[in-house]
């Protein structure tokens, strides 16, 4: 039983109707993760299709401007489809195919996971349906069109708050109805076991590469590794191979929206409490009655009221720390990185850039920060312009 948990977090809190299927996925994953043929095919996809390894880029201008620690950016934004999401979906879609599934479904917030899933489905010849909160389909209409272009059906979810958590609810309902030919491609390190483990394993390529790259470039490990956190997949991928390096600080940057003193945030660890939801015991934004709270962030990708159970465990044991970053700070960082380095970061990733901006000047010049630049910001340009008072026709 303990293998389903990270300390006291995790588990499989899902309806009975999904249990047989989740066990099948568990068994299939246990088998294929050690299967040479599966791993060979996945490696080839990552190298020749997704464009891995991603660069570890020394942000020289940013480092000089901030006058403290050396800043490196792990360029997941350069992957095919523009974010770290492709690492996970290629793995899970391939697993679906090996399991004999004909169809994949997925939830999406910002649309990045949806686009990545639709891409993998197109490549591997799988039917694809994406569940997305109605509000998110409006905020991210370009990504909706992108998914449709890739041959996916986009299902706008009109229940509840019409955002990411409702998309997860609806995708789970659909999965319960059609698991015999359908695999649910979960987009983050969340949900019932084995998903948090599967997604973490597929994303851990980020830190596997980054660790080798920094040792090769600098001859030593970084002092700080940081990433933005919604459900927490890019952060888990960025942290994983550094967890045993006790001197490397791990920092997750949560979306504080309009500020953690307001109700308009998605800062799960800063403001949340332990609960059980979406298949896992973890930390959630909720009221004292255990009703899941509506959350808010300018970033649709971080607009989720929970966090993956392994993050809850890393926080609980003190191995990682989590800091809130507001919309305003993230937008500043979005503009800053664009001007200083010529790199337009995703608004999600901008949360991590924002905290690096704060932290670097307090550190020594011989110290090193690696920031996971989880995605590119093209999708956010119109929204940021609007935030700054300029209306752009996409």
């Amino acid at each position: 039983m303990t293998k389903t948990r990270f300390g006291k977090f995790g588990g499989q809190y899902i309806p009975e109707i999904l249990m047989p299927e989740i066990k099948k996925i568990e068994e299939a994953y246990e088998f294929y993760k050690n299967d040479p043929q599966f791993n060979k095919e996945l490696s080839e996809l990552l190298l020749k299709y997704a464009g891995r390894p991603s660069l570890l880029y020394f942000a020289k201008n940013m480092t000089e401007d901030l006058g403290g620690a050396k800043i490196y950016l792990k360029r997941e934004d350069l992957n095919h489809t523009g974010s770290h999401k492709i690492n996970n979906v290629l793995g899970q879609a391939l697993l679906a195919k090996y399991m004999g599934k004909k169809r994949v479904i997925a939830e999406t917030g910002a649309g990045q996971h949806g686009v990545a899933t639709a891409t993998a489905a197109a490549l591997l010849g799988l039917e694809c349906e994406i569940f997305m909160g109605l509000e998110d389909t409006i905020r991210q209409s370009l990504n909706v069109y992108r998914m449709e272009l890739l041959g996916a059906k986009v299902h706008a979810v009109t229940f509840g708050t019409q955002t990411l958590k409702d998309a997860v609810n609806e995708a789970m309902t659909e999965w319960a109805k059609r698991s015999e030919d359908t695999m649910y491609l979960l987009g983050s390190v969340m949900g019932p076991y084995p998903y948090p483990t599967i997604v973490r394993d597929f994303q851990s390529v980020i830190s596997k590469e980054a660790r080798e790259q920094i040792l090769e470039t600098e001859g030593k490990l970084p002092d700080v590794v940081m990433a933005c956190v919604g459900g927490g997949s890019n952060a888990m991928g960025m942290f994983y191979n550094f967890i045993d390096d006790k001197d490397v600080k791990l920092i997750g940057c949560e979306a504080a929206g309009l500020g953690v003193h307001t109700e308009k945030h998605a800062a799960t660890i800063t403001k949340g409490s332990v609960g059980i939801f979406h298949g896992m015991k973890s930390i959630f934004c909720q009221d004292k009655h255990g009703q899941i709270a509506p959350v808010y962030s300018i970033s649709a990708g971080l607009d989720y009221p929970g966090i993956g159970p392994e993050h809850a465990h890393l926080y609980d044991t003190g191995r990682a720390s989590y800091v809130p970053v507001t919309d305003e700070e993230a937008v500043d960082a979005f503009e800053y990185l664009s001007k200083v380095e010529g790199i337009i970061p995703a608004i999600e990733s901008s949360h991590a850039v924002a905290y690096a901006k704060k932290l670097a000047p307090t550190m020594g010049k011989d110290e090193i920060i690696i920031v996971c630049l989880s995605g590119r910001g093209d999708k956010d340009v119109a929204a940021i312009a609007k935030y700054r008072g300029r209306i752009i026709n996409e």
Partner: protein
Amino acid sequence: MSNIKNAFQNKALIGFVMAGDPELETTKEVIISMANAGVDMVELGIPFSDPIAESSVIQSANLRALKSETYLPRIFEMIKEVRKTTDISIIFHTYINPVFNYGYEEFFQMCKETQVGGVVIPDLPFEEKQEIKEYADKNEVDIISFVVPTDGARIKMIAKEASGFIYFVPSIGATKAMEGHTKELTDVIEMLKQTTNIPVAIGFGINTVQQAEFFSKMADGIIIGNAIVKIVEKYGKDSANHVFDYVKDLKSVM
């Protein structure tokens, strides 16, 4: 063991109602009218913001109930009021998170105090029962197990440890089953009967008098959910009499 078995002395009619839909006073009236109409057990929903395993009819009832700020402390108060009128068997239908936040110890003590004999928790499968078992056992509250048509080994594993009654959800709807597709039902029920002595109730969209008559012959009890919730959705605060008429008709053919 709880008082649940009393409800299964004859074929049991189990009626679902969402606490606080549209407010708790109505729920109290609906429970009492169901008791008066001969319903054997009330399955009382505790509203949750994200009911992932429900029909859209029941999902909406959850949201209506939350709108009237229906949380556990007030639900227990309402049941205490109900207990002044009827000792009808009551079980809860809830997601685990509201119970976790209320506190397991206190929750099951309150269940005992208000004679709530069982809990149906869709997001607490067999594998996670330990989460609450200690507290439920101590207070003689049954954790009702769901069974869906899967492999026989899993069905038997669940049935062996089940208490109260088995909540069987077939994969096809009641309408389809009425067209003669009953093999799945009879196969699973037979398997359950070979494994356990506790009663088996079917819940899968039973709606009409004909269906009630048909399916109550196949199992020890039937669960009526959507149909009652739709009446409450339609009549709001004036639901009690309408629910009474509806369930009385069903009970008359069982």
